[in-house]
């Protein structure tokens, strides 16, 4: 089907200023991504998948300006965690601020450097998982990212990573427009934790493709920056082999627009994928979690746990789907999306979906939105706990199920104490 002229024009305008690198294996992958993008066009509000989130500012030619937020009142996220740091400032690699890229059990390269070779392991991952994730729902912004990403990291994990790899995204310029693309490949039995934190840019597009081979374990914890005006569209595409584990948790506070997509394929028997998010939004905050989990093998388990706390007109969106393919027997799928609305101006839009083509499966989903429990609030206050502290306790309790998805206790505590601090100071 030919693309409508308006979509065609919008796409041409958007990519006019971007340069397509044609060299090496990466050039070929970029060319294919551009072909996918050209066939799809950019998303518009009328598209079913963008009904609750207006993509206009994500597809605009120029990134809307976003002031840099001063977060010097607290130590950076994951500061206390022993990790290998890779720093990008407004999407540009910062060698001076980054650690040496050598780590036992892991090979790390920068995309901008490794892309020119003729052969590379990442050829089987880059744009490949993204392309698989374009069906049955189109994700043009991910294809745009694959075609035009300026940098990123390629991480191949052959053993047990000695330390977490930490991607730090610094936002310095109020008009920066960053596109990063990472690939992570875990060989059989390997294990790594990837951390991400920071606002990255005024507008940030990021794709992470993760191939988790048999029995390998991938842990991902991310804290998106507190800049109020920043915009981000992110995609995680993951494919899991037999007995593999994938766990991803995202904390989002502030940001005028965030769309986080997770597209996960359980391709091997007994694979386990958990994806969770905790978001706290105030005022002009729009946060969209869009998740698509495909069960394509037997005895796999998936969990989606998304919690949002919204106030002063903040908007939360959840689109979550579990697709159980024919033959994916003994599937155990769980999905919960809940929001706590601290006032009547805020709203939560949820579209939970189950599509099941196997007969011996266990799938459940639930979605709720509600106010803070007044009875619990009174109970706490009657014991002398001041109103604001009582509210924070209940908000943290509400988010607890999502935070519980973080396996590493030190990292979970970092996230928890941060939230506690923000809630206590009444700001994010």
């Amino acid at each position: 089907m030919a693309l409508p002229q308006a979509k065609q024009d919008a796409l041409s305008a958007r990519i006019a200023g971007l340069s397509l690198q044609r060299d090496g294996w990466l050039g070929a992958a970029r060319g294919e991504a551009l072909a996918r993008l050209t066939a799809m066009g950019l998303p518009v509000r009328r598209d079913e998948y963008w009904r609750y989130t207006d993509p206009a500012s994500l597809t605009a030619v120029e990134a809307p300006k976003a002031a840099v937020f001063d977060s010097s009142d607290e130590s950076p996220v994951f500061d206390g965690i022993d990790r290998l740091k890779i720093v990008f400032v407004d999407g540009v690699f910062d060698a001076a601020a980054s650690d040496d890229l050598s780590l036992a059990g892991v090979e790390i390269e920068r995309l901008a450097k490794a892309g020119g070779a003729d052969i590379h392991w990442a050829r089987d991952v880059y744009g490949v998982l993204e392309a698989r994730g374009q069906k049955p729902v189109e994700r043009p912004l991910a294809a745009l990212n694959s075609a035009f990403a300026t940098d990123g990291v390629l991480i191949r994990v052959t053993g047990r990573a000695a330390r977490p790899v930490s991607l730090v995204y610094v936002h310095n310029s109020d008009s920066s427009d960053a596109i990063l693309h990472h690939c992570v490949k875990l060989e059989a039995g390997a294990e790594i934790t990837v951390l991400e934190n920071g606002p990255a840019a005024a507008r940030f597009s990021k794709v992470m493709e993760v191939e988790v081979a048999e029995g390998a374990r991938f842990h991902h914890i991310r804290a998106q920056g507190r800049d109020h005006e920043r915009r981000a569209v992110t995609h995680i595409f993951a494919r899991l082999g037999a007995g593999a584990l994938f766990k991803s948790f995202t904390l989002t506070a502030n940001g005028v627009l965030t769309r986080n997509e997770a597209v996960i394929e359980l391709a091997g028997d007994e694979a386990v994928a958990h994806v969770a998010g905790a978001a706290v939004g105030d005022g002009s905050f729009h946060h969209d979690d869009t998740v698509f989990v495909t069960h394509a093998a037997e005895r796999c388990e998936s969990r989606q746990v998304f919690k949002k706390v919204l106030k002063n007109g903040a908007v939360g969106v959840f689109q979550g789907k579990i697709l159980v393919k024919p033959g994916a027997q003994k599937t155990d799928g769980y999905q919960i999306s809940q929001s706590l609305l601290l006032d009547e101006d805020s709203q939560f839009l949820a579209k939970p979906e189950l599509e099941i083509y196997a007969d011996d499966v266990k799938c459940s989903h639930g979605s709720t939105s509600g106010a803070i429990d007044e009875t619990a609030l009174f109970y706490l206050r009657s014991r002398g706990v001041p109103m604001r502290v009582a509210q924070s306790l209940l908000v943290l309790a509400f988010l607890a199920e999502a935070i519980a998805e973080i396996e590493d206790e030190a990292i979970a505590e970092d996230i928890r104490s941060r939230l506690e601090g923000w809630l206590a100071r009444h700001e994010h």
Partner: protein
Amino acid sequence: MLRIENLHVKLEEEDKQILKGVDLSIGAGEVHAIMGPNGSGKSTLSYVLSGRDGYEVTAGSATLDGEELLEMEPEERAASGLFLAFQYPVEIPGVGNMTFLRTAVNAQRKARGEEEMSAGDFLKVVREKAKKLKIDAEMLKRPVNVGFSGGEKKRNEILQMAMLEPKMCILDETDSGLDVDAMKLVSDGVNALRDEGRSFLVITHYQRLLDHIRPDVVHIMANGRIIKTGGPELALEVEHNGYADLLAEVQ
């Protein structure tokens, strides 16, 4: 200690008068009981004193050691020494019992300008007090009242009371849902806290709780008023004859 004068209370949402002029005075170290038929306003009295939403005070006052309670926020009332043991203790998923207790103890200390309790000291004290109430470590770790049996919830209320050391304790039908052994345990917990500086208001339907927690004064409440006041023998009288005679007497 607690002085309630001519207290009139109606429901905020509807035009329904619940308390129609309650007068009650409890001295330091005294234990008073309020008995009365269903709907007489006993629980409303406890909620109004502790500051729950949904009630409107149309007249009267309630002071604790001279301070007007009715103008304070619930947490201020707690900090000034008022404690309500709930008839239906509230379940709070996601908030650990220990975190809850410690937050409450330290919030009250802070409000009174006292130093906060260290984690170590707190743990020592709470373990010791929990042991007396047969509350095990597991119960302390679990979320507040979640999955607790009726008896465990009531014991947890008494533990909170023991930790917060209030001067005025209101027990709202603490005996409801308790078997004989649990009632003994809870009563022992309450009795252990009795001293010269601490007063109790025990709200109950049944005389049997008063066998364990011996009151100094017994009040009968009906139709939003206290209609009779006497000694412990008044509770026995009600137990034998019911409320009908007393109500008829007043009318």
